[in-house]
């Protein structure tokens, strides 16, 4: 079986500064794969390289049999690859419902409405705040909104960038319960986290990134078992 998302020798840079220095990574259909690493190790850069926001310096990204290396982000989105960016990046001046509808920008009206209802059912807190300006939501609510917005697109794969960032422990628990639910529904997820423990608990497979290189990869349980590794590479 070939992987849904497959990355070979991906290199990404900001000007002259190399941030990702040739990494290989695979995500199979229905898998949850996590990419963990310390601050500045290149996790966000990798996701931006996959979704097309950053043009790769080298290497290849293949998604669902299509070579998407260097493709414009809106075209990659059309193939069903959806990213929930770091820091949520919700549209603060729009209402909650408008944000969700933007997530379904490529989805036709009837289907979009159906998915919107589904998401509002999954996130009752968003349903209560449907007509509220999204900028006024709490951090946790904004994360729910960012995830709901991605789900309305009906993605084949979701790239989640640090969903737990800056949230209270209770909120983190709720967000991970949602990820767990998506996993049970068979959704394919590439999860970036600094909270390695949480990520490894939920993932099937794990990659550990250190200053732009993969230092370790394998089944999540094995990677988790190596506590020394976690200490060395995650500073945890």
């Amino acid at each position, binding site marked *: 079986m070939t992987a849904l998302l497959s990355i070979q020798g991906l290199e990404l840079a900001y000007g002259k500064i190399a941030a990702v220095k040739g990494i290989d990574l695979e995500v199979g259909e229905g898998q949850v794969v996590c990419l963990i690493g310390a601050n500045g190790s290149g996790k966000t850069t990798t996701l931006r390289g996959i*979704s*097309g*926001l950053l043009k790769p310096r080298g290497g290849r990204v293949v998604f669902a049999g299509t070579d998407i290396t260097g493709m*414009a*982000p*809106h075209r990659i*989105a*059309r193939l069903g690859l*959806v*990213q929930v*960016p770091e820091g949520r*990046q919700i*549209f*603060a*001046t*729009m209402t909650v419902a*408008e944000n969700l*509808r*933007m*997530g379904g*920008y*490529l989805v036709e009206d009837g289907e979009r409405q159906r998915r919107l209802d589904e998401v509002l059912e999954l996130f009752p807190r968003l349903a209560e705040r449907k007509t509220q300006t999204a900028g006024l939501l709490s951090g946790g609510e904004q994360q729910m909104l960012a995830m709901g*917005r991605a789900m309305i*697109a009906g993605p084949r794969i979701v790239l989640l960038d640090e969903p737990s960032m800056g949230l209270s422990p209770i909120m983190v628990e709720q967000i991970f319960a949602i990820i767990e639910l998506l996993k049970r529904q068979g959704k394919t997820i590439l999860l970036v986290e600094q909270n390695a423990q949480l990520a490894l608990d939920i993932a099937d497979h794990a990659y550990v990134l250190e200053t732009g290189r993969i230092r370790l990869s394998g089944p999540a349980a094995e990677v988790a078992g190596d506590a020394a590794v976690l200490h060395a590479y995650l500073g945890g």
Partner: protein
Amino acid sequence: MLAQQLFNALVLGSVHALFALGFTLTFGVLRVINLLYGFYVAAGAFAALVAVQSLGLGLWAAGAFGVVVAGLVAVVCDFLVLTPLRRAKAPELSSLIVTLGGVLLMNSLMQIVFGAEVRRFPARLLGQDAVTIGPLVVAPIQLVIIATVFVLVALLFWFMERTRLGTAIRAVAERPDTAALMGVNVGLVVAGVSFLSAALSATAGILIGLNFNAVHPYMGEPMMLRGFAIIIIGGLGDIRGALVAGLALGFLEVMTAGYVSSNLKEAVAFTALILGLWLRPNGLFGRASGKRA
């Protein structure tokens, strides 16, 4: 007398508002101070004039022609001049200087091609003479102006608030990268906004040209001063604010000219700008402009 002044103010204010709507739209989405925007006033008016004189088109067809020509010129100018600046994330001052050069160049070109003297639309275009309605003397063209602005503003609001594309434009204005992740073709939206905003500028130019029956290469310059005052008072990128501030400025100008001195008319925009910045630094509807930059 007062009723007549109020009516004239409504005509002028609605054109100002239309002009400012496009200006605020281009600023909100393209994130650059685009002084070329003022050029499209004259570009639209001249294109319409040429359509009338050389192509023999009627009022509406000539107007549409002028609007489309100005819109297309804007798409090309923005692509050549502004897109590189946006890509390089250049500071706002560079866009100001580059587009200042652009507008000076374009205005001189217009003057070379069309001459500096004031041109006029043929009288047949403007319809019948003014009629007296109660206390008002109303030229039919004034009614056309008010109706045109009213319809265009309503359409613009509907488009921006209710349609998928309008929402996408707002999304691009706020977070272009995130909008791209949702499948929005940002380059195309930017080109569309260039067209749309220049079309509004050109429409304002044509309406002003008709109202005073005067078209000349520099007619956009006094509009730009007003445009700045209106979008700063209304809040940068804020469409509702531009509408209210544009109408208000029209009223202030007409009232100043009518009851104080017409020499002070030009000073009104400046004074309003300073007072506005003083009293409501974040715009009429109080959205912090800093956060949007």
